[in-house]
């Protein structure tokens, strides 16, 4: 069986449309974030979550009414986990006083309100209370980890390929992060620690397809000495298109299984992975290589003059191609 065999799409011709499309999504996401904010998980916003199990599942409205007197509109109530477990999650923004050790005061208030509301037997199966001081620390650490891992990947690809390839890969990854954040904002998923973990995993994963394509570009540069860089890149993307789609597909299958069956806690994580895998594939095909050509001054030279080390088993010992700054101007749409 084969998909996308012997395709000859001119991906580079679409690069400006693709970049515009990506910007549209990212800016729309930014717009949503600026107007409605990013919904923050409790780790970042602070607050109290109480998960209660009822003998008889009440309606969400009943639970809301029970909490109304103490918490008003601020309480978020939703069914939690499998319906057969009859669990309800209540989230309120308050926490007890940080000093005096009564951080759990708000949780106790929720428990008391539920118990006295005549909703039958209820027991608390889990609580989560996070003081306001914690979030800031995590945000900086998350951003730091993301930036450092991008720098790490940049350095590695620059070492193994060429600097322009590394720029392409990192811009593509950055693109994936922003698009993923945009979709998280569109679908109003809470930004939680798990989601941040998924975002970091996406940075690692989304470079994979890019590397596969770059590897083929490097290989083709030797075989297609008479063609322009644009043609070489287009050929490489087309040759690897099948595997790009299939590798994304298998990972997507795993992410979808997590989304459907992984339970409440992992839903945001799985959603992030799904978006990350899709945008990662898109950016490998449309963004990464386009950035390489743009970075090199929109003017790919004859490949022959700059054919760098070739893919395959000889790569490790191959000498680095000296970068040439002066290039005869030439249109990128070459194929």
């Amino acid at each position, binding site marked *: 069986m084969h998909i996308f065999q012997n395709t000859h799409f001119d991906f580079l011709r679409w690069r400006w449309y693709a970049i515009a499309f990506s910007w549209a999504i990212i800016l729309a996401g930014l717009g949503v974030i600026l107007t409605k904010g990013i919904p923050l998980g409790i780790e970042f916003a602070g607050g109290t979550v109480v998960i209660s199990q009822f003998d008889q599942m009440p309606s969400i409205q009943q639970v809301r009414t029970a909490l109304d007197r103490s918490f008003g509109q601020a309480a978020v109530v939703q069914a939690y986990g499998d319906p057969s477990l009859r669990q309800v999650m209540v989230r309120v923004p308050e926490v007890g006083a940080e000093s005096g050790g009564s951080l759990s005061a708000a949780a106790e208030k929720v428990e008391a309100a539920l118990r006295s509301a005549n909703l039958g037997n209820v027991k608390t*199966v*889990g609580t989560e209370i996070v003081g306001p001081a914690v979030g800031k620390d995590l945000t900086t650490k998350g951003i730091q*980890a993301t930036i450092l891992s991008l720098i790490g990947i940049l350095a590695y690809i620059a070492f193994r390929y060429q600097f322009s390839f590394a720029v392409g890969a990192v811009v593509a990854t950055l693109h994936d992060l922003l698009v993923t954040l945009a979709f998280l904002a569109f679908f109003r998923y809470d930004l939680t620690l798990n989601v941040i973990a998924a975002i970091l995993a996406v940075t690692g994963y989304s470079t994979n397809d890019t590397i596969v394509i770059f590897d083929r570009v490097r290989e083709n540069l030797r075989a297609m000495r008479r063609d322009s860089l644009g043609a070489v890149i287009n050929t490489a993307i087309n040759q690897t298109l099948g595997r790009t789609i299939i590798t994304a597909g*298998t990972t997507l299958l795993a992410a979808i299984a*997590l989304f459907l069956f992984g339970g409440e806690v992992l839903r945001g994580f799985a959603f992030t992975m799904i978006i990350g895998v899709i945008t990662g594939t898109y950016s490998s095909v449309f963004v990464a290589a386009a950035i390489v050509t743009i970075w090199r001054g929109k003017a790919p030279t004859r490949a022959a003059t700059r054919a760098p080390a070739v893919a395959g088993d000889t790569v490790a010992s191959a000498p680095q191609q000296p970068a040439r700054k002066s290039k005869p101007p030439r249109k990128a749409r070459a194929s």
Partner: protein
Amino acid sequence: MQNLRWKVVTAVVVLVVFTAVGVYPIVANRYGITTPSWLMDRQIKLGLDLKGGVHLVLRVQTDDALRTDTEGESERLRESLRSKGITVSAINMVSPTEFRVEGVPQDKDAAFREAAIEADTNFSRASGVGGTYTFTMKPNVQIALREEAVDQARQTIERRVDELGVTEPSIAEQGSAGDQILVQLPGVTDVNRAKEIIRSTGLLELKIVEKGPAASRESLLEAGAVPQGMEILPGTSGGLGEPGTTVYYMVKRVAAVNGNDLRSARPSLDENGRPAVAFTLSNDGARKFGRVTGENIGRQLAIVLDGRVQSAPEIQGRITTDGRISGSFTQEEVQNLSVILRSGALPASLTYLEERTIGPSLGADSIRSGVLASIAGLLLIIAFMLIYYKLSGLNAIIALAFNLIILLGLMAYIGAVMTLPGIAGFVLTMGIGVDSNVLIFERIKEELAAQRGVRASINAGFSRVFWTLLDTHVAALISAAFLFQFGTGPIRGFAVTLTLGLISNLFTAIFVSKTLFELALSRRHQVASLSI
């Protein structure tokens, strides 16, 4: 042929070893099969989010430790000035790291400087107008004291948690400011007791009472102020059955002995048969205590716990080693107090930043959905690979099975903790793992299309993709490393699973998968086609 035989043997040995370490203990546990302990010792541990328990993040108020030190220094200076006959108008605390001496007489200035030499080791001295001196703790001393306070607090909490009898607790310093302590207590259900015991400062001090008890703080003042070297502490009055009201005592600021001089503490009963805590002093403490009680027979001794007078019995004779703390305690409070006193006082107070309790049922749900997601993911991937790559798909599936078994074995061997995000990492490893096979198979297809022979195509497929795979895996490992750096608890579980999964995948996709191809082709002389 010889070569192939060794490859197969290697693969089988790897499979057997990792199954024994990683998979067998889980199965044995589940079905209660008796197994030698050396095999069960190394097992994948369940994280708090799967097992249930309490997760606490505390902040050590390191300012407390600084304040205590600054206060101590100012008291020492006061004593030294008194013994040298230098009178100053006041010595006051300005902040936790600063105190000020006011009104040093002009003619005693040189003598004052002489007396203050000792304080100069840790404090920098600045002189102001009218004989005013400000002592500020040196920055390096502050840093050292803060670190020490956090370290001591962690050790104290460790001792208290040990006393609680929690199995496999985890207590660690965390946070960029270095003043947070993470406490994880798997399986603990009585959250409030655990919280109370961890947080209580547990500072026991025995102080000589100068005056009191009195009904109000004001009535103890002399000329409207607390005399130098004294302090006023609240306490509860009332004997057996009387309702307690708050009363005040004026006591010496410097304690005769404190919690550091304790050797042990245990629940006991007081003379009225009410719950009390009996304690024994260390040799050093007993000597000090004996001297103080001997000098103060007939006066009251305040037993002060965390700044509150519990009781103030009359000293009837010289006491050396043993004492008793009585008050209106319940049996449970006495139990807790014994634990707290035995484990020593905290150097600074603690506040809770974060508190999570995961009921065992919630953890079990998470395990169930994690297992369900794993099975669903596995089936989807198996179905896809078989449909798309036919018999070669089977090759990929066997390689995947190897991958997962090695992953579990590695996790068990290093004693990794399986968390819910860790399970997610496990599921993703399946998806990402077969990617390597896909890349190899696609390359083989390409080589076949170029009219190469089957064997040559397979060899070319593996050797050409090797460097690509190495690059993609290294890139993914880089981000997994930073993920590990970033995360705590559950996230680290994810990073660990991902990392180990990537490493084992490199082995299975290249070595196991290739061996399987060679094995399949070894019986046939002329291979015309490949099911791929």
